């Protein structure tokens, strides 16, 4: 029997497990998935919890229900990965698992401790995150009785999971306060380390205009150094200060601590990965998918999906002794909620920034690109069903893995 080990049963790990059981001869392969948590979270749903659209139960399902029957699932923390010995040590029962091939899908998570003062007296009193289910629920409780003031949304540093989420949060907040007849009592400020509203110029311009139209103030090049809990001020490394009544923080995002313990990562615990093949740079029988990579692609479910698509084809070649093809192009496809039942759609890769146009999708589309529409909002709301029933299960999605220029307007 050949052994394949998948570390992490989140979005990427679940998708790849479901695809592999169909592609590999399960009489010859044993596949094991290890994860420390029994619950699968629909992470794109966290954004909607503070505004009461979703509750915690709407975004939680048992992991086991979405993993194929043919794979062994072990719920345990991972003590250390030893890629030189082709083995992984688990905390549970001190087990050691050996492997022929390893797939690292350990994801990323927020680390508020990285910013001095962020997790002190005001944490979950006037400082919240919405990247964890508990944080999003706590923020929802706070907002229900908030009388208004200065809401500052701060991104601590890049990269973050879902780089459009901060903008979506602000657009939804603007709509939420309008609906509660208190928009005039709320000042919305976006303090970002980026030089503009988004990472790419054309989208940055378009989304920047929308911030203006919604009266959301943009503070750029703001690299947070510390939080003063008494004065309720965030201060950047170059001594800019922004006062807040409510701070919604997207703290530093890092890869799993087990990557650090195993000495396999960079300074943010992301695993150095070959940009176009998804093989770990330093190991020939290790692949890295989803948020765990150090790649300059977005950390997002759509990206993990496209990665899994190209990985599966490449892995089958690899097992037959053929070389890996450079087929991963950094493709990402994201719906951006813009409030009042409307949304944007952006589609881009390593080389092509988000462009305006129309995005063809058989059956449901077309969706307008980089432009607000109601259809895009419904695309996003339908996506929760699609996520659980199509995407995770590795069924075919009507979007090609590699980005297409079809429908995009070029200058």
């Amino acid at each position, binding site marked *: 029997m050949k052994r394949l080990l998948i570390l992490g049963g989140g979005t990427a790990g679940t998708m790849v497990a479901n695809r592999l059981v169909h592609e590999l001869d399960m009489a010859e392969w044993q596949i094991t998935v290890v994860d420390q948590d029994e619950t699968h979270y629909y992470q794109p749903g966290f954004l909607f919890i503070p505004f009461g659209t979703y509750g915690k139960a709407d975004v939680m399902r048992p992991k086991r229900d979405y993993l194929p029957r043919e794979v062994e699932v072990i719920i345990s923390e991972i003590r250390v990965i030893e890629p030189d010995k082709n083995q992984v040590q688990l905390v549970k029962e001190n087990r050691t698992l050996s492997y022929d091939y390893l797939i690292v899908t350990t994801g990323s998570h927020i680390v508020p401790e990285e910013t001095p003062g962020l997790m002190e007296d005001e944490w979950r009193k006037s400082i919240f995150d919405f990247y964890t289910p508990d944080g999003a629920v706590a923020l929802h409780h706070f907002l229900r009785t908030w009388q208004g003031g200065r809401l500052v949304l701060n991104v601590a540093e890049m990269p973050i999971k879902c780089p459009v989420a901060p903008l979506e949060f602000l657009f939804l907040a603007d709509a939420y306060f309008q609906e509660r007849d208190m928009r005039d009592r709320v000042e919305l400020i976006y303090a970002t380390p980026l030089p503009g509203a988004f990472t790419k110029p054309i989208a940055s311009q378009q989304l920047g205009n929308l911030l203006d139209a919604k009266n959301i103030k943009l503070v750029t090049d703001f*690299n947070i150094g510390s939080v003063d809990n008494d004065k309720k001020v965030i201060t950047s490394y170059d001594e800019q200060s922004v006062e807040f009544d409510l701070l919604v923080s997207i703290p530093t995002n890092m890869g799993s601590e087990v990557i650090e313990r195993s000495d396999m990562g*960079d300074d943010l615990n992301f695993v150095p990965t070959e940009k176009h093949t998804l093989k770990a740079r330093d190991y020939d029988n290790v692949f890295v998918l989803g948020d765990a990579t150090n790649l300059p692609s977005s950390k997002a479910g759509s990206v993990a999906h496209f990665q899994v698509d190209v990985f599966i084809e490449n892995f089958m070649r690899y097992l037959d002794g053929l070389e890996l093809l450079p087929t991963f192009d950094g493709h990402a496809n994201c719906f951006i909620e813009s409030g009042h039942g409307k949304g944007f759609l952006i589609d881009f890769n390593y080389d092509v920034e988000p462009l305006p146009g129309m995005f063809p999708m058989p059956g449901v589309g077309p969706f307008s690109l980089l432009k607000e529409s109601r259809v895009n909002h419904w695309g996003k709301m339908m996506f929760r069903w699609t996520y659980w029933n199509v995407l995770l299960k590795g069924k075919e999605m009507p979007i090609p893995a590699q980005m297409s220029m079809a429908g995009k307007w070029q200058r």
Partner: protein
Amino acid sequence: MTTKELNVAVDAEGFMTDPSQWTPEIAEAMAAEEGIAPLNEKQWQVINWVRQEAASTGEFPSLRSISKRSGVDTKEIYELFPKGPAKKIARCAGYQKPKGCI
């Protein structure tokens, strides 16, 4: 000497296109254009560490790596290379604009 007089090949944003052509004079010229010349000992410590790191890994290090491992902490880096340290360090060290994330 300015980067023009030194005949340095740069891109549209003033970043060197070939790090192997770098010389200490170019670093001083870049620093002058960034308004931080002459470079002091600490600034050189950062630039030298970054060049060494980039040469050995093939990638320009992130600001986080620089502050963690060059021996100069984040706060000080912002004082030495104010307003956009990553960009200023990359220019002085002869590398291209650090790529953000998509």
